[in-house]
């Protein structure tokens, strides 16, 4: 057994710093590179892409990235784990295999985890007695079944561990928890059991610290953010993991950012519910048991973690089409910028009303005044306001109403208050409103599958 392993975060979301994974594999020694690509909205976007082209539906950045880092990973023995397979992990793995073949790499094993996509399996699940009731409203999924865009089970670390046991150098999954990506190599390398709840919780919490990339190493830090060194060259976080479950969070030397008690603590409280019960498919981790020790030099020890057995359910995230929305903006300058923006808003609303359009919601915000903190915003002295951006957004189940809204913005320039600018990019187009349907599924009703993808020339694939 190794006495420690280094797991590096390469991406906090799809769209994160392109060079971060490259920096992680080149600026110091690591054993694993883990990359989280999936937000809830991402799954529905990927499903739409796959509907148009069955070879798509994964994070397209991955093959491009692999072209750059694969030769380095192979040379250094770095394993890569990512959930960027989206709704088509097999196609993603095949694309990576093609990259490897083109680079002349022969000895590479790629594992994929599938089985999380239950969109075409809803009928069987309902017949098995689970109506995937909405966790918030308790309604049956049947109420939105015809409008479903995607439906995915969150798998945990263990299917990835299975891939690593098959000898995989790269593991590509669909909907896997962000935390599972980091926990999996610890289970695999240290031989942890599925009943080692404290250790599984420790690895899960390390995963929570890593899952948003630079957010634990000085990015988006609300403390003394002005003093964080060199954010332009921020080093993404690395978990140095030990067999007893202890972890040191750090980053490569000679990179920007900061790893401290405070930067790690901010990430720990990010997007959590009841801290004593952080539920994953692998365990229930207790965030109130976490001990943090700032060791200095961008090293924070995380230890003392307790946890419990996982629940009998997987979380399921479904998305469905729920109407249309559009937003647009106009900018008004001094003098009386706020008064002009408010007057424009009133005129626009009157016109929308006169047209008898149907909206579920119309929302106006005055950027530069109250768009972030609403009623908590300070009152401004009109004389000292340089400019205000009116941002107005609508939502409706009636597409025609949203389309017509888009045509009513530009006319305000010639038929509303003066000193107005900033209408660029043409009429705002309606976009689909994608709503979420969180549900629970008894674990026995679905089974993760792990398989190896062979390195074939593209022409050899059927």
């Amino acid at each position: 057994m190794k006495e420690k392993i280094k797991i590096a975060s390469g991406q906090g979301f799809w769209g994160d710093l392109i060079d971060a994974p490259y920096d992680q594999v080149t600026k110091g020694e690591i054993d694993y590179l883990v990359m989280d690509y999936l937000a809830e909205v991402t799954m529905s976007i990927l499903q739409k892409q796959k509907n148009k082209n069955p070879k798509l539906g994964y994070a397209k950045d991955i093959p491009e990235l692999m072209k750059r880092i694969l030769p380095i990973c192979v040379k250094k023995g770095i394993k890569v784990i990512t959930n960027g397979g989206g709704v088509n992990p097999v196609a993603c793995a095949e694309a990576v295999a093609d990259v490897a073949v083109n680079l002349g790499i022969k000895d590479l094993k790629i594992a994929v985890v599938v089985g999380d996509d239950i969109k075409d399996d809803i009928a069987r699940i309902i017949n098995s007695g689970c109506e995937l009731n909405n966790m918030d409203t308790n309604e049956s999924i049947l109420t939105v079944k015809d409008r479903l865009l995607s439906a995915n089970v969150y798998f945990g670390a263990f299917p990835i561990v299975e891939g690593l046991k098959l000898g995989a150098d790269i593991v590509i999954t669909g909907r896997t928890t962000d935390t599972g990506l980091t926990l999996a190599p610890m289970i695999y390398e240290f031989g942890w059991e599925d009943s080692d709840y404290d250790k599984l919780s420790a690895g899960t919490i390390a995963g929570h610290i890593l899952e948003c990339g630079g957010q634990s190493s000085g990015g988006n830090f609300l403390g003394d953010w002005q003093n964080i060194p060199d954010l332009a060259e921020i080093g993404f976080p690395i978990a140095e993991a030990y067999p007893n479950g202890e972890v040191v969070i750090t980053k490569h030397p000679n990179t920007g950012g900061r790893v401290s008690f405070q930067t790690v603590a901010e990430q720990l409280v990010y997007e959590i519910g009841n801290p004593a019960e952080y539920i994953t498919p692998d365990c229930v981790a207790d965030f109130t048991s976490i001990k943090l020790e700032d060791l200095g030099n961008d090293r924070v020890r995380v230890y003392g973690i307790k946890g419990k057995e996982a629940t009998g359910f997987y979380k399921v995230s479904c998305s469905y089409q729920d109407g249309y929305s559009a937003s647009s903006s106009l900018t008004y300058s001094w003098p009386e910028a706020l008064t002009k923006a408010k007057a424009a808003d009133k005129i626009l609303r009157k016109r929308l009303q006169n047209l008898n359009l149907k909206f579920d919601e119309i929302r106006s915000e005055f950027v530069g005044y109250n768009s972030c903190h609403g009623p908590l915003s300070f009152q401004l002295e009109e004389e000292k306001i340089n400019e205000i951006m009116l941002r107005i957004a609508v939502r409706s189940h009636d597409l025609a109403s949203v389309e017509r809204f888009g045509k009513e913005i530009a006319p305000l320039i010639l038929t509303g208050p003066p000193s107005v600018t900033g209408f660029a990019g043409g009429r705002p187009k309606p976009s689909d409103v994608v709503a979420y349907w969180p549900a629970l599924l008894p674990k026995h009703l679905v089974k993760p599958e792990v398989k190896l993808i062979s390195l074939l020339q593209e022409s050899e694939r059927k």
Partner: protein
Amino acid sequence: MKIKLLDIAHGRSGDKGDAANIGIIAYDDRGYEIIKKHLTAERVKIHFEGICLGSVERYELPNLRALNFILHNTLGGGGTVSLKLDAQGKTLAAALLRMEIEI
């Protein structure tokens, strides 16, 4: 004596569906005693009047000198349903730090 929450604590906020989570972390033990005593769920609910339309839950993490608040029915539907510029509640931690506390 009045103190600004911003001077004794930092934090981070995000979304969980239509609920926002706000984690507030005190810089030292004394600061934690102050937020633990004064930053009640009721006080946070009143602070966010007109923004948080549901209930507020509070959890304590003394190990991190932190409190975690869940603000239900706050993000205008959440996810891509919300028409808010800050649909994910990213700036709400800063909004809470506007509070002044009498000690």
